[in-house]
């Protein structure tokens, strides 16, 4: 699979070596970050619209926090602490399923239950990880929370590619059904939608892509990229078509600018922070447009 990014990576490095683009792109790790930005941007921007529609904004944050415990378990059972994917995926999938199961069976509102699980997962994860990191003498907590897009390797990119394909193959054919179920489950059921099954599918999907992105952009930033571009797009759009495409555009632009700008102008800002600041800037602009231009106000009547 690595040929998929070897070709563009070599091409970009060649361009940088020929002084056609900024010299920082002559380093493979910078190009890796840029390639990840091209994948993560559309992925999180697209799924983010469904997250906003389903009012599950903080779910990925809870799963991201659960990844802390996953990493700790991975270190304990002997996985590499830089890429403990098996334990992260296993623990987070169980966590996500249990959260959804609890939501269905307690009938508690999503935001309350996710808030409770978010706090618990952070507490357990931080405790477990601090204990483990003392043993391996490293600061894994920072890596899981904030990621490091400039340290991704081929394994991380393989995981990301598989996750992207899985998400596209699953979410595209089910998009209408998931959206309809979020608007009126009863109506969706009459239309042949298996509402509860789809809830689990979406939760699994969101868990998998959150874990795949944690190492690269961190738990905090995954949630931000799922939420902010979709919220910015909602400010300007009146149709699902615009909502999804603009969210993908905003998210991708944020990722690319976030990786490129600090390199290009030697800004003392880490890539993750730059991605979110860009995305926050876009959100503020769209919010001002919505507040000042009457044609954008209709949707909130």
């Amino acid at each position, binding site marked *: 699979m690595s040929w998929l990014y070897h070709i563009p990576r070599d091409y970009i490095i060649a361009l940088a070596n020929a002084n056609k683009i900024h010299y920082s792109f002559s380093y493979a790790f910078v190009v890796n970050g840029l390639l990840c930005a091209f994948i993560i941007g559309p992925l999180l921007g697209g799924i983010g619209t469904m997250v906003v529609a389903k009012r599950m904004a903080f779910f990925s944050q809870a799963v991201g926090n659960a990844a802390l415990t996953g990493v700790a378990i991975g270190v304990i059972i002997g996985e590499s602490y830089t890429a403990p994917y098996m334990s992260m995926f296993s623990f987070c999938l169980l966590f996500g399923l249990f959260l959804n199961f609890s939501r269905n069976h307690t009938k508690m509102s999503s935001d309350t239950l996710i808030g409770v699980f978010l706090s618990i997962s952070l507490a357990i994860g931080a405790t477990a990880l601090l204990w483990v990191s003392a043993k391996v003498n490293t600061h894994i907590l920072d890596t899981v929370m904030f990621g490091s897009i400039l340290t991704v390797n081929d394994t991380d990119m393989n995981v990301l590619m598989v996750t992207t394909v899985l998400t596209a193959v699953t979410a595209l054919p089910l998009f209408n059904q998931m959206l309809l179920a979020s608007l009126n489950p*009863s109506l969706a059921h009459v239309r042949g939608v298996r509402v509860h099954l789809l809830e689990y599918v979406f939760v699994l999907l969101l868990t998998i892509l959150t874990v795949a992105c944690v190492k690269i952009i961190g738990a905090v930033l995954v949630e931000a990229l799922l939420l902010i571009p979709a919220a910015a797009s909602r400010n300007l759009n009146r*149709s*699902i078509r615009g909502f999804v495409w603009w969210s993908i555009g905003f998210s991708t632009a944020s990722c690319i600018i976030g990786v490129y700008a600090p390199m290009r102008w030697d800004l003392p800002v880490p890539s993750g922070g730059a991605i979110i600041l860009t995305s926050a800037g876009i959100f503020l602009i769209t919010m001002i447009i919505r507040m000042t231009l009457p044609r954008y106000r209709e*949707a*909130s009547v």
Partner: protein
Amino acid sequence: MRGPSIDFERVNLSLGNTPILEDVSFKVQAGTIHCIVGANGGGKTSLVRSLLGQMPHSGRIRIEWHDSKVIGYVPQTLDFDRSLPITVLDFVAMASQRRPVFLGVSRERRKEIADKLEQLGLAGKLRSTLGSLSGGERQRVLLAQALIPEPALLVLDEPTTGLDLAGKEILEGTIKAFAKGGGTVIWINHDIVQVTELADALTYINRKVLLDGAPRTVLANGAAAHLFPTLILSAEGART
């Protein structure tokens, strides 16, 4: 399109220890408008949700399908975030097509939706957001989605609540035309005037079936005066 006939046989339903439906038995004839009336909390919506396979119940609900098994359903309300950018076209299309709506709607389906909206007095609302519609307009959009693709059975849960007179007339005309075309309608309805004028049959439910039959026969029953005296008075007033 020939609608199904439906046979409710001793349907029982409890939520926890609370009985919601007890031995509910009645028949819905194919191609008729059958109204279900009764007090709030009497189990009407639960009965309809049992019919739709959404509530576990005992007893039998036998549906005898003829041409197709498509059900159109108009829920009581659409509880959603009003700021979501979903147009009327998006909503109706997402309920009736497989292609993700953000990748577009086929020309044929778009025309079908536009025609149906026009028929329901919503011409020009194709690109309006759901959040910007009035309650009455949203009810008519819900009916439009229920009619695409054409169903054999139409299940309505108080669709005329919040509608103005013009909206009511449009909706009534559409439902009448649907039943005239052979479709079966099950309609939860509180408006006894409407029931008297439109329904072929009426079933009054308050946990159990208390009245069942043709509206005029049922309303002539002495028990009816006890169950909804004010409604009968207003119905008589409307007829005179």
